């Protein structure tokens, strides 16, 4: 029971992370296509400025909870996906620094270096998180004793790449909508146009992903056993369609929330399909790491549950407050302002 609760919490934490950091990763990756001059680039940074760091803590927490609740899975997952994770790490470090450093020196070369750190540092994690999670859904070559048997290129397979593209599209649509929400005039129009242009590709990719999931993974087994669970992919698809509906009506906030719901439901779709496995072995199901053989002791899980149920709602409360505090659209006059990094 405790194991199941923590499995759900684990999935929810990753889903919330993707929902939040998704918009700033997506927007960062799209910056060269959305901004035409330095002022517009600064506006784009400014829309993410107060939020990116708080968003990224969800990743640290999701990683920390994987460690705390399922240490064996954490150990195998992180050492098995070594190179992918290192790439994500370097990308996140460089993009994070660019927020603090970019406007510190008023020189085009300096700014352009950090801009590229932001762009590549956003693009890579968006893609790689998708590749990594698709591989988790599909199963990775874990041998006896939880030893990862794959090599550097194990993760590069059709389903993994499909997952990477799916995440990239989810995040870039999410980021374009964030720009539409947070700006006005040209930038807003460009954000909305970008979302409209990317949306059909997202739809195609989502359909392809759902179909190949049926062909290449065992995720649907849980759904066939408990048909009520089909609600989750149904929500994902419905939310995906609602993005387009709200986009058509120029209702940016609603479109953004629909996109947020799509990301959460997509992540949960995979996680629920995995249950009770955290790491499916593609070699032999007996080697899979699941909530029974990879979780922490009941005492640790209980203490962590008290901590999580006490503090996570508090975190959500003050992060919602911060989003409300900075709810205004970002305008050019905000840039000359003293409120900046």
């Amino acid at each position, binding site marked *: 029971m405790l194991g199941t609760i923590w499995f759900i919490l684990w999935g929810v934490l990753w889903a919330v992370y993707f929902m939040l950091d998704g918009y700033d990763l997506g927007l960062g990756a799209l910056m060269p296509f959305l901004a035409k001059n330095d002022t517009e680039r600064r506006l784009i940074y400014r829309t993410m400025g107060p939020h990116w760091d708080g968003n990224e803590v969800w990743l640290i927490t999701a990683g920390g909870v994987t*460690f705390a609740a399922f240490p064996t899975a954490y150990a195998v997952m992180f050492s098995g996906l070594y190179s992918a994770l290192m790439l994500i790490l370097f990308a996140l470090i460089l993009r994070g620094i660019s927020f603090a450093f970019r406007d510190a020196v008023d020189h085009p070369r300096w700014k352009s270096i950090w801009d590229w750190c932001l762009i590549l540092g956003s693009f890579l994690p968006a893609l790689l998180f998708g590749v990594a999670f698709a591989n988790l859904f599909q199963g990775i070559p874990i041998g006896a004793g939880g030893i990862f048997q794959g090599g550097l290129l194990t993760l590069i397979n059709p389903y993994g790449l499909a997952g990477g593209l799916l995440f990239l599209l989810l995040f870039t649509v999410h980021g374009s909508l964030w720009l539409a929400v947070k700006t006005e005039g040209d930038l807003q129009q460009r954000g909305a146009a970008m979302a409209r242009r990317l949306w059909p590709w997202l739809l195609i990719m989502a359909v392809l992903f759902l179909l190949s999931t049926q062909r290449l993974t065992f995720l649907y087994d849980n759904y066939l056993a408990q048909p009520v669970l089909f609600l989750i992919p149904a929500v994902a698809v419905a939310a995906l369609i609602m993005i387009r509906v709200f986009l058509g009506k120029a209702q940016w906030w609603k479109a953004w929330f629909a996109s947020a719901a799509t990301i959460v439901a997509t992540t949960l779709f995979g996680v629920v399909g995995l249950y009770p496995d955290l790491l499916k072995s593609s070699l032999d199901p007996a080697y899979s790491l699941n909530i029974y053989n990879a979780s922490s002791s009941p005492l640790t899980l209980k203490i962590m549950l008290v901590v999580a149920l006490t503090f996570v709602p508090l975190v959500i409360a003050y992060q919602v407050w911060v989003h409300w505090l900075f709810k205004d659209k970002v305008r050019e006059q905000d840039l000359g302002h003293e409120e900046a990094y």
Partner: protein
Amino acid sequence: MDALMLSRLQFAVATFFHFIFVPLTLGLSILIAIMETVYVRTGDEDYRRMARFWGRLFIINFAIGVLTGITLEFQFGTNWSRYSRYVGDIFGSLLAIEATLAFFLESTFLAVWIFGWNRLSPRLHNLSIWLVALASNLSALWILIANSWMQHPVGYTIRGGRAELSDFLAIVTQPFAIQQFFHTVSGAYILAGFFVMGISAYHLLRRQHIAFFTKSFRMALIFALIFSLAEIVQGHIHGGEVAKIQPTKLAAMESHWESQTGAPMWLFLIPDEKNERNLVEWGRIPGALSMLAYHSSQALVKGLKDFPKDERPPVTLTFVAFRTMVGLGFLFALLTVVGWFKRNKLLESPGFLKVMLYAIPLPYIALQAGWIVTEVGRQPWIVYGLMKTTDAVSPIAASQVGVSLGAFILVYSLLGAAAFYLMIRYARLGPQPLPAAAGEEV
């Protein structure tokens, strides 16, 4: 080199780099919070400008500290997976608690502080930096509880081939953790104090922004003075804990080879690890080691030779690091006491100001040396007495670690250079005139 050696190097690089930036944020956040509080209470604009000026330097350090911190959390899984699997039940939960309690709070409210100058009442804005200061120090507390468990594992039972939690309170309240927390944050506060004093001295030597930097200097001086003096007393108590629970570390710190009662201390000493003796011993203080470690000049202090060779830490490195830390610690107390008597005539003391300017790197060296004592002195154990470092490494290819280590060195060098450049630039620039923004409360 094998994956083990490369992973150790990588951990050292990642940790050292991380800890160049973090200590400043622990202390500077408090100083900035005090500055803004003075502004809110008295309306003295200087203090508001101080909060902003030191705030810029704080943000650079904070950003690098947070981002390089992610590496540390991930590395336990990527490079030390056997360790993570063996102790994750305990260690992992402490890290997760740190993230949930502290990281969210500091990251979220730092953004509120940076972007909220005109959106919040002065009091609420001031509260946000206090929350950042609280959260940063809270995060230090949890990570040091986790590290202390590696130094002195308590509250666990071995079950199913791993260490499982049996007594959570024992882990979070063990004296070693409390001592290590106070020792580390006091060091961080000294560092922040010297940082502020050093940069203030630079401007005072040039006779610019005199009121601004005199106020900054004095505030930092009091802060650093208190913690430099406290650190000496506290360090002594902390050393007593080490003597009690990590006898091999204590012996290495003093390069103490033969067990003896009434063990002396040597003012000057050169260890000769290969031949298990000291090459040079000079300036004998009879019974001093016994006295300092066990509060009795006749107490028995175990020597390194009484421990199997494969359970001894590297002696020379631990010894040199320990002496460096202690020597610098006394120097900080001396400098801040001298500063106390010069506090009202700073401008007439250019010699002292110059010393304080060049003293900026010293606390950095002292803090890194302290961590060498802590971590190298714990070897060959990753968890003292429970698991050896050689058994902790991930089953990964050395080539993978070699590539990532190279990338770490490259990326961190560039980042470090950029950060150093920016800090010097901001520090030299001095406080900027306040822009007259719309709706500004003055």
